[in-house]
């Protein structure tokens, strides 16, 4: 009898919390749509003039004391239809304008990497307008010219001031790629120390630096299996509940949060 009452209380409490959470979430979404309407910004924010966007971003990030060089984007994708690629293209554009050098997209199941990569590539080619001083490079997986071991040399000069490397990862890259390390003939057991393993892993992953910031979409804070070796110092910050509601202001808000974090490195 007592346990039935307790169970009932459990249900009631959960129901109330779910209710409050939904109200809160829908309230937020309503507010965002309302602001959109008021500002009269078109849904496809790529049509906002590139110069305006660049100026807007530069003004807002001017007084931030630190900015990430490598941003990871952790997506929660269950099937192709969940993803609005134009939002991801926005992220690429905004990162380019905030002096980010590496952006890595990740979803556990690999839907972005295996099914949508070419559409994504095409959309970027079509929609993203680059200024003369900007260079966009695809990471080793998609860039047929760079072999896996060389990675992308950085920094490229060639007259470019802004430089962004795009990578797309899945759980395969997090785990299965490690097998290459195991079968590496050059490693003998007495050599195996963290520094040597780190060098090998760097090469294996195209010499990308560790991501200082990981943005995640959705309610749950979770690494989702993203590159375990690389995330030891990464800040995980939620950018949006849903990808479709991603806006430039949310992105900038995350950069502000990142700039406030203090990193003591164990000391």
């Amino acid at each position: 009898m007592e346990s039935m009452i307790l169970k009932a209380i459990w249900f009631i409490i959960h129901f109330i919390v779910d209710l409050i959470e939904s109200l809160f979430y829908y309230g937020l979404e309503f507010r965002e749509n309302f602001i959109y309407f008021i500002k009269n910004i078109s849904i496809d924010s790529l049509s906002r003039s590139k110069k305006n966007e660049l100026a807007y971003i530069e003004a807002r990030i001017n007084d931030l004391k630190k900015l990430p060089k490598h941003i990871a984007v952790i997506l929660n994708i269950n099937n192709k239809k969940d993803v609005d690629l134009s939002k991801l293209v926005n992220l690429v554009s905004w990162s380019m304008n905030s002096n980010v050098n590496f952006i890595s997209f990740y979803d556990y199941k690999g839907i972005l990497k295996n099914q949508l990569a070419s559409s994504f590539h095409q959309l970027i080619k079509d929609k993203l307008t680059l200024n003369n001083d900007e260079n966009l490079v695809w990471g080793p997986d998609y860039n047929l010219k760079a072999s896996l071991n060389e990675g992308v040399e950085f920094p490229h000069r060639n007259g470019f001031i802004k430089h962004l490397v795009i990578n797309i990862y899945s759980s395969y890259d997090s785990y299965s790629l490690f097998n290459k390390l195991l079968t590496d003939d050059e490693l003998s057991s007495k050599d195996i120390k963290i520094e040597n393993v780190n060098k090998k892993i760097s090469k294996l992953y195209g010499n990308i630096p560790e991501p200082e910031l990981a943005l995640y979409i959705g309610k749950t804070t979770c690494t989702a299996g993203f590159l375990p070796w690389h995330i030891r110092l990464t800040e995980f910050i939620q950018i949006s509940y849903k990808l479709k509601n991603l806006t430039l202001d949310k992105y900038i808000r995350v950069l502000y949060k990142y700039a406030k974090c203090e990193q003591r490195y164990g000391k």
Partner: protein
Amino acid sequence: MSWIRNEELKLSFFENLAIKIIKQGPIPKHIAFIMDGNRRWATKFNLNKSEGHKFGFEKLSEALQWCLEIGIQEVTVYAFSIENFKRSQDEIDTLMGLAKEKFAKVLEEKDKLHEKGVKIRVVGNLDMLPNDVQKVVADAMLLTKDNSKSILNVAFAYTSRDEITNSIKTIVEGVENNELISEDLDNVLIDECMYTNQSSPVDLLVRTSGEMRL
């Protein structure tokens, strides 16, 4: 100050009620705690850092007790990172002293631990610890190794990179000693060679002090 604080822990009526209600629904099997912010807390209250660590440990004992009451099967605590060796010798000595004291207490409280069925495992690169600490750690682990109701993992001299590297080293050694063939080598094997190979996956991670690093 003890590990299992049977007599000392008094839960209020509402706390007891809350635990009973929570147990009606699903509970995580494995919770991990990253204990952060002891020193900042101490400065805030004008205490010195070792006081901060002592109070931190007190609170940890309480939290472990709550977990036992709720019925969490496995709890992992990140007590000391290899990166923490960068701190001042004073502070390292304090932390090591605290560890020695607590692990030695385990030996005293073995009846309570056996009664609650708590198994203690210390994960990390134990070679990096001073010999006397290594000894008490080993004793604590041996003493409780047959308990099986709940598991407490203490990450001491641990970093994830060290764990992965050590795992790889074990495997490469295995290959060199012809104990493994290339067909055996996959990432599942890496999992099985980790310090934490016997643990179930972590369901919930609690990090105090507001940092967002996992």
